[in-house]
């Protein structure tokens, strides 16, 4: 068996804000179908890293490569703006911590799911509506509420709506920034289970930022632990959590309250 080509490859990626508060010297490969969690406390640089990887902020230095659906090996930092936008529309998704930032509040739930489809060329209204209905059911939303505005849904429902909006175009790589952080614990469990089954059945590659070790254990194949802007430990999820090597990871793991 030969090793598959990584989907996303970062080498020595650095993004600083006035010499601090960023991420430094981050290197890793993400493989197709793999869920990678970035864990760390607030201020550790994990969201900066995610935004840099997703091309939402420009890296200062380092390299970032992506293997596209038609097998092109793209140098993301050198990619033109129109091609970046095309990539984000057709092959990537980005799920925000706050669903209201990732949804369009002025249009209906169905339109929120249908819009990304139209952006990649779907024109048949009936088909778009049918797909939106299917996706509402898939994320366990009441499909009869397809014409209601996002504000009419609860926080957990809005988050599921945002996930449907991101997955409807069949992306290959999805970035998620603390997707469960603002939700009640009972709603979290439902969302986690949904994410777990969707990532497995759709063979998605996912980069998730979280400060919650439980989320990481449930969803991730691999972990990267960040502290002070650097990745201090990385490895298989259960290995990093059961046999942490770095002092910071040991503190992080031992700080979780047993249930």
């Amino acid at each position, binding site marked *: *068996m030969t090793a598959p080509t990584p989907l996303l490859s970062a080498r020595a990626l650095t993004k600083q804000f006035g010499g601090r508060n960023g991420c430094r010297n981050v290197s890793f490969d993400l493989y197709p179908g793999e869920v990678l969690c970035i864990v760390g406390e607030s201020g550790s640089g994990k969201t900066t890293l995610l935004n840099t990887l997703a091309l939402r902020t420009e890296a200062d230095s380092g390299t970032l490569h992506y293997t596209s659906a038609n097998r092109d090996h793209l140098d993301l930092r050198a990619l033109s703006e129109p091609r970046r936008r095309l990539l984000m529309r057709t092959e990537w998704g980005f799920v925000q911590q706050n669903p209201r930032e990732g949804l369009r509040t002025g249009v209906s739930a169905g339109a929120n799911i249908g819009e990304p489809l139209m952006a990649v060329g779907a024109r048949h209204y009936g088909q778009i509506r049918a797909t939106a209905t299917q996706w509402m059911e898939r994320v366990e939303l009441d499909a009869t509420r397809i014409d209601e505005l996002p504000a009419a849904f609860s926080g957990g429902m809005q988050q599921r709506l945002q996930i449907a909006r991101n997955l409807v175009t069949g992306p290959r790589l999805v970035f998620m920034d603390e997707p469960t952080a603002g939700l009640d614990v009972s709603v979290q*469990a439902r969302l986690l*289970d949904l994410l777990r089954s969707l990532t497995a059945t759709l063979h998605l590659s996912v980069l998730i930022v979280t400060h919650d070790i439980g989320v990481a254990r449930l969803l991730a194949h691999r972990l990267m632990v960040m502290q002070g802007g650097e990745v201090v430990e990385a*490895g*298989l999820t259960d*290995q990093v959590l059961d046999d942490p*090597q770095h002092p910071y990871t*040991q503190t992080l793991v*031992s700080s979780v309250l047993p249930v």
Partner: protein
Amino acid sequence: MSITESHTASAFARGFADNPALMLRAVGVAKTFTLHGQGGVQIDALDGVSLDVERGECVVLVGPSGAGKSTLLRCLYGNYLASEGTILVRDDAHEMRHRAISGAPPHDVLHLRRSVVGYVSQFLRVIPRVPTLTLVAEPLVTRGVPEAEARERAAALLARLNVPQRLWSLAPATFSGGEQQRVNIARGLIAEHPVLLLDEPTASLDAENRDVVADLIVEARLRGAAIVGIFHDEDTRARVATRRLELTPPLRHTATLH
């Protein structure tokens, strides 16, 4: 790597090509934990253990508490990083007929866990909301077995382990300890991994269910699985073991106890 080291490494590895029955080889595996939060104190948990396991063998680990039995199993599964030593597992999909678990990239360990090495502990890691039948069928589905067949096999195994059918559609979070453990065993054994690591799978079961589990383990062995296990009761050990490996607590560990 020095010349002597690479020479020995290839000698370890040659066993897999020469001996088609060899499934798992551990050489000089040791584990020391460093607790940074507690003044960097070091705990030796396992002292240079070597072990070859062939197809159809069930090696039972014996020794007092603290001898490192569970630690060894976790090292073999890649759940703990071995501090020293080499762990090789047969992988016929690989041109060398084996892969290393020690020092392997996560990608390789995941591949081995999916296709070669299975691990059953005494604890079920509950996944919220996932029904029992789906949970048990999952390892088959991820290996490409059609969903209907996977569910059928899961149902048969759950029935055999006396998990009442009315529970199959429920998530096991609210089940009793013994029921959860049997769900866990079903999930661990269903995929028929060629190498099985069993950490006290019978710990909280009644005598009847312990017998069922022992039967399943013997069947796996007769099917050709290479098994390394820890069992707390002598009955089960006597029924499943083809060989025993005695572990002794590492010296430094014993020293700190006195």
